Each structure stands twice: as C-alpha cells, then as structure tokens.
C-alpha cells in the first residue's frame, strides 16, 4: 500500500465531537493554568455529550505533561502524547489522535490546552536557553516580536509588502471579533489606528501583535462510527499534516517562506484529497499580522508576496468570499501563548453552523493552519461537516 493510500485510509476515520474554552478567557489572576486545562476539558466533554470518565487518550503540550492532565481529571489514560513544538502542537496532535483512535489505541481522545499567559498563575517556566542565551539575548532578542519582525522586514524587502497591508490583517480580524461575544477587543479598528499605535519593534506596532491572555481550550475526538452517538454534529478530520524545520531563526532556510508550513499543508491536503482553492473557511495562527499572509503563501493558496491580498475588504472580512479568522484571532479574541487549540475550536463551531452573528453561511470545508515558534513547526488540518 502506498504512503498516500495509507494516509487516505485515515481520512474521515475520526471526528471532532466536542470543543470548548475554559469558563472564562482574559485576565484571570484567580485561576492556575492547570485549572484552565480542567475547565476546558470538562466543558468540551460535556459539549460532546460524553463523560470525563470516557476519556482514555490525553494529548497536551506546554508546561504540563499529559500525565499531569490525566491525574487532574481523574483518568488513567491508555494513551498519552506530549509533543511540544510550539503553539501549533495542538493542531499536530489532532493528527496524532486520529492515528491513535484509528488503530484502537484509545477510544476518546482529548487535546487540551491551558495557559496562564497573562497572569502567570501556577506557571513554572523551564526553558532550554543555552543557544539563545549566548547568541540572541545579549543583543536584546527575546520575546516573539523580536524574531518575527526580522521575517517581516525581509518580506517587505523581497516582495514590497507594506505596513498598510499588514495593518489590513488586523482590521479584517477585528471585524470578526466584533461579532464574537467572547473576543477581548471588539471596538472598530482602522488601518490608521494600527499605523498610529504604540511602536514595539518596527515593523510592528502594538496592534500588529497578538493579545496576551489567560485561557484554556479542549477538543474531543472519537472514531467516526462512535461519533454518531455524540451530542453534536460530527466534524470529520479529513486531513492532517505536520512539519518542523528549525528553532533558531538563523537556521530557517528561507526567511520569508516556511518549509514546515508547506510540508504540513501538502500532507494534509493529500490525505483529504483537496486543493487549496476548495476551502470556504480558513483559520490561521495570527500571533502577528504578517503571519497569516505568509502561511497562505507557504500553503500554496497565495503566490509569494501576495498573501496580504486575501485580507482586503470583501475577501477575508464578514460577508466576504473567503472568511479568515472568524473568531477574531489571536489579534483580537484571545491569545494565551500557545494559541493553536483555538482555531480548531472555531473551525468546528463554524462547521456545526453554531456561530450566530459570525456564522459563515453554508460552510463545508475549513482549513486550520498554525505555526510553532517562528514559523518553525506547523500543523495543518482539513476539517469538514461531510465525510
């Protein structure tokens, strides 16, 4: 059997049956990040019409191991996965969960995220800083904007992209946030507002950069045959792909093109049997305004240098031809640090047609793509409400 045939066999074999956030999102000094996990899991399991005791596969990334999460919810799991390659880890783990479920290694998988990114409650950072400590921190690097800014400047140099075009991404995303009651920033925003906001690291002003919040999110999956018995309309995982290229930005082979993203998309699209032009809804990891355009370019949906064109009025915006980041994104809805769980939650809700004012009419096929680190790793999902 060819590799492609093996991948195709996995397509639509597993469904997302439950999604939810923690009870609250935002500034939550009264909650540890472990509580954010537990809230999200109990909420998502309820959304699926299942019980926490049904969960037997635990997938999580970040500071807590899947063992800690299992213990916290009182489950002795049959399967654990703690792959941590940055904020896209949760997207990648949906693919890992498909494999584990398909092969009967577990029956109900939960992918869980909790992060006290703003308040730092119950946080114990443990990072390998040997290389950045020598080659980056002495120069003032540290914090994601100081790395992604370099990618962005080089893109402007190579492709002539402008500050106004990056700002348009924030404007489009804010329009969606205005329609999402859970979004943190919902006031109208203009390109001028972005350009006039506080400079942080040129080419980024503060409104080019995601929020910093406390939040949790969880996604529950089971095999398609069992999904029929769950509470909500199942969302099929038609394709999943992952990639990982570099960690240190100096090691990125092409500073304006994410090889990890390209590979993740290629695999996910092949598994699903879809093309980039087939999607009617897109969720992209927007830690910075320049991220989503570069992801569209690496995924092959846009030519190099032209990803920004997707964010023009009437395209990505409410009522537009190809809605992008309909929850309001990391830029305006929430961004706890490892944002990747939230685009999956939103895509699932859109495909269930339960999004109220921000519902994309008749959406059938959603693309979820996220990065880890600085376009270092990537995960792509093709989700559909049809098999």
């Amino acid at each position, binding site marked *: 059997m060819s590799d492609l045939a093996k991948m195709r066999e996995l397509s639509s074999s597993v469904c997302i049956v439950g999604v939810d956030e923690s009870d609250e999102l935002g500034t939550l000094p009264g909650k540890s990040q472990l509580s954010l996990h537990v809230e999200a899991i109990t909420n998502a399991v309820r959304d699926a019409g299942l019980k926490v005791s049904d969960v037997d596969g635990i997938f999580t990334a970040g500071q807590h191991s899947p063992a800690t999460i299992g213990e916290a919810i009182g489950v002795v799991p049959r399967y654990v996965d703690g792959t941590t390659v940055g904020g896209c880890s949760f997207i990648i783990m949906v693919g890992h969960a498909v494999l584990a479920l398909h092969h009967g290694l577990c029956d109900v998988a939960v992918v869980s995220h909790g992060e006290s990114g703003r308040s730092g409650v119950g946080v114990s950072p443990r990072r390998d800083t040997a290389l950045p400590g020598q080659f980056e921190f002495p*120069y*003032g*690097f*540290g914090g994601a904007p100081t790395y992604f800014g370099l990618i962005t400047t080089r893109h402007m140099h190579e492709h002539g992209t402008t500050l106004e075009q990056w700002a348009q991404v924030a404007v489009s995303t804010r329009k969606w946030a205005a329609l999402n009651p859970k979004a943190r920033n919902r006031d109208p925003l203009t390109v001028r507002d972005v350009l006039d906001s506080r*400079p942080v*690291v*040129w*080419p980024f002003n503060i409104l080019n950069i995601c929020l910093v919040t406390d939040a949790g999110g969880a996604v529950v999956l089971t095999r398609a045959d069992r999904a029929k018995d769950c509470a909500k309309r199942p969302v099929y995982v038609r394709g999943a792909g992952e990639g990982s290229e570099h960690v240190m930005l*100096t090691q990125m082979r092409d500073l304006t093109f994410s090889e990890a993203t390209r590979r993740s998309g290629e695999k996910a699209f092949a598994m699903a049997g879809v093309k980039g032009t087939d999607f009617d809804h897109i969720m992209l990891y927007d830690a910075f305004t320049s991220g989503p355009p570069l992801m569209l370019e690496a995924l092959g949906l846009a030519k190099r240098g032209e990803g920004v064109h997707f964010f023009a009025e009437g395209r990505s915006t409410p009522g537009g031809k190809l809605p992008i980041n309909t929850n309001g994104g990391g830029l305006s809805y929430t961004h706890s640090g490892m944002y990747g769980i939230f685009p999956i939650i939103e895509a699932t809700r859109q495909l269930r047609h339960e999004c109220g004012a921000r519902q994309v009419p008749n959406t059938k096929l959603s693309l979820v793509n996220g990065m880890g680190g600085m376009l270092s790793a990537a995960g792509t999902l093709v989700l559909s409400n049809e098999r």
Partner: protein
Amino acid sequence: MDLERPLPTPITPECRPYWEGARDGKLMIPKCRACGKPFMYPRVACPFCASRDVGWVQATGRGKLFSFEIAHQILNKAFKVKTPVVLAMVELEEGPRILTNLVGVAPDPKQIRCDMPVEVCFEKLTDQVSLPMFRPVGGGAR
C-alpha cells in the same frame, strides 16, 4: 560591575572557541572538514553532512544585513541599552547567518536597508567577553 547587556550565558563547551575568538577581536566560526561548509551555531556535527570532523576558521567579518528591526522596548530587564536599538540578522560572506545589533547608524528604517554591506566590530563587555556587532561598511564611528 553594572553591565548594559546580559552576558552570553551559559557559554557552552562547543561554543567556547567562538567567544574566545571574539574576546581577541576575531570572528571565529565552525567549518566542516568533510564537506567544506562553514556554519553557525557551533555544534559537534556538521548540519549539512552530519560529519563529526568539525574545525574552526576565522571569518572575514564582512557580510550583508539580511534583515533588521528597530526595538523600541526590550523585554529582558538585563538589557539596559537605551532604545531604540537596531536588532539585526547578518549573513556572513561565508554563508552562515547570525543575530546581532547594527550599530553606527541611526535607528531609522529609512536609513537602513536589507542587503546593505556590513562589517564586524566588537563591543567589550568584560575582560573575558566581547560581543560581535556589525556596522555599515565605510560608515559610522562606533
């Protein structure tokens, strides 16, 4: 002593020749003896061919400004250089890219362009540690 910047920490054994070179005013980089390619950061196997036969060469110190940004705030409290500061990625003539600061130029995006030629200079932090930085070729006193 009150330093303006965090010292490179921890200096790992694999990277010691780089920092000893910088202390002596030389930009030393690893070079694979098997495939002949220089690389950064220092490691025990070549990232191009995985050979364990790795030596060191002195780089010319010339290169181009591959990308840059202008930091108006620095999160690291140990970094006390007055902002704005130009954070940069330089591509050395030999090929490897490193992160650094661009000095000897106004921190103004209109005065700086990608691919402009740059050359190394060293800022002494302590008797043991100097930091490689870059300035535009033929321009600007540090």
